[in-house]
């Protein structure tokens, strides 16, 4: 039916709607504080263990949701595994093949089978956490629907990056022996003082790998969610339905881009983990 309407009529319709929206006076008085979206307040208070506050907050809930989704998917896949796959199994197999061959297989030369469980699980965990962050869940202030992601917290991503960091050096030491492994941090032909200097620089770069791995994921997720939140906040600031309509269109675009970012960041996290662990295994310089 819409096909018969000429283009100019559609344009006029859009303009009329926009003008109508502009004429309706905004009545929202509420302010949305972008930074508050990322603040964690305990939902269930739990006792401290030493300096560790085990209270359940928004991020913990998101982590558990991600774990539950992964566990349910894994159990379902395990129960319904068939030689002739259905649609769900095909999707899971595609994801598995991407992790196994696209990430681990293409980057690591040796030890792919040994380290795949960790890297594959990290990929799936980060991917699920990122994607759950794009589903509105009622954990914002006053139990409103809101966007948050477990990976939009530096300490979650830092923990994940610490796993990679620890496994990298564990793999390197186990494969090459501790002396040999750290000796390989120094170039062989360099003069004595320079050699130690390079050793220190290498150590710093290892720390920075940890930082960049965690901060990249964290900052991407925070930036995406912050931009979405800013779009919503701007609609409230302008207090106009017209601005709200336009900004909603914009935030829809951003949302689509965020889906892409969520997948790409999980991919990059896993592939860099594979590169680091593979690099520690294949020392040659």
């Amino acid at each position: 039916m819409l096909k018969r309407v000429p283009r100019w009529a559609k344009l006029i319709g859009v303009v009329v709607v926009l003008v109508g929206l502009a004429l309706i006076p905004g009545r929202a008085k509420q302010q949305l504080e972008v930074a508050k979206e990322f603040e964690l307040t305990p939902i269930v208070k739990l006792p401290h263990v030493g300096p560790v506050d085990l209270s359940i907050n928004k991020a913990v809930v998101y982590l558990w949701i991600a774990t539950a989704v992964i566990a349910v998917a894994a159990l379902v896949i395990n129960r319904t595994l068939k030689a002739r796959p259905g649609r769900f199994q095909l999707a899971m197999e595609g994801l598995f093949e991407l992790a196994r061959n696209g990430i681990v297989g293409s980057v690591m030369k040796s030890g792919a089978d040994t380290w795949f469980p960790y890297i594959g699980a990290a990929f799936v965990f980060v991917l699920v956490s990122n994607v759950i962050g794009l589903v509105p869940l009622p954990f914002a202030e006053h139990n409103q629907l809101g966007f948050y992601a477990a990976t939009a917290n530096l300490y979650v991503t830092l923990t994940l990056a610490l796993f990679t960091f620890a496994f990298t050096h564990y793999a390197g030491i186990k494969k090459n022996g501790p002396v040999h492994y750290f000796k390989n941090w120094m170039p062989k032909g360099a003069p004595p003082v320079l050699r130690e200097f390079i050793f220190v620089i290498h150590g710093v770069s290892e720390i920075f790998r940890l930082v960049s791995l965690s901060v990249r994921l964290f900052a991407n997720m925070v930036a995406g969610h912050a931009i979405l939140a800013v779009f919503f906040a701007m609609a409230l600031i302008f207090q106009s339905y017209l601005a709200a309509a336009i900004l909603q269109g914009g935030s829809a675009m951003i949302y689509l881009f965020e889906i892409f970012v969520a997948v790409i960041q999980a991919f990059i996290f896993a592939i860099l983990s594979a590169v680091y662990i593979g690099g520690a295994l294949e020392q040659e310089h």
Partner: protein
Amino acid sequence: MLNTQWGLMVWTLITFGISVAVLWKYAFGPLQRIIDQRRAQIGESMEAAEAARAEAARLLEEYKQTLAKVRAEAEEILERSHKAGDSAKAEILAEAKQQAERTVDKARAQIERDTRAALLEIKQQVADLTLLAAEKVAGKSLTDADHERLIQQALAELDFDELGMGSKG
């Protein structure tokens, strides 16, 4: 936003650990197994298809050879039958010729015999006529000695060759 949250790190450790364990135990192994299984199956079926193809090619080759052999045989049979026909023809022709010749010879002999008989008859009649004529001329009967002499005389004067033996020529 950036202040240290040890509790969250512990929770991440726990949840991520559970995820790794669950995925490792329930998802990755079985998925890998079923994908390998399927790959092996595909390989097997491809091998089977390859074998079937080779078999088909072999059969085709065999049929071709058989066909060629059969064709050669048929040609040989045809050739042989041609030859047999030719020889039969020649035989028949030769026999027919022989038979014709024999028939002709027989006919010729018959003719000769007939001619001889006819000649003998003619001789007889001529002798009788001569005798009759001589009796009439002499007006009296002749003796047997006279008869014989007269007949021999008349016959000596006649050239029998012109009467029929000329055809034998």
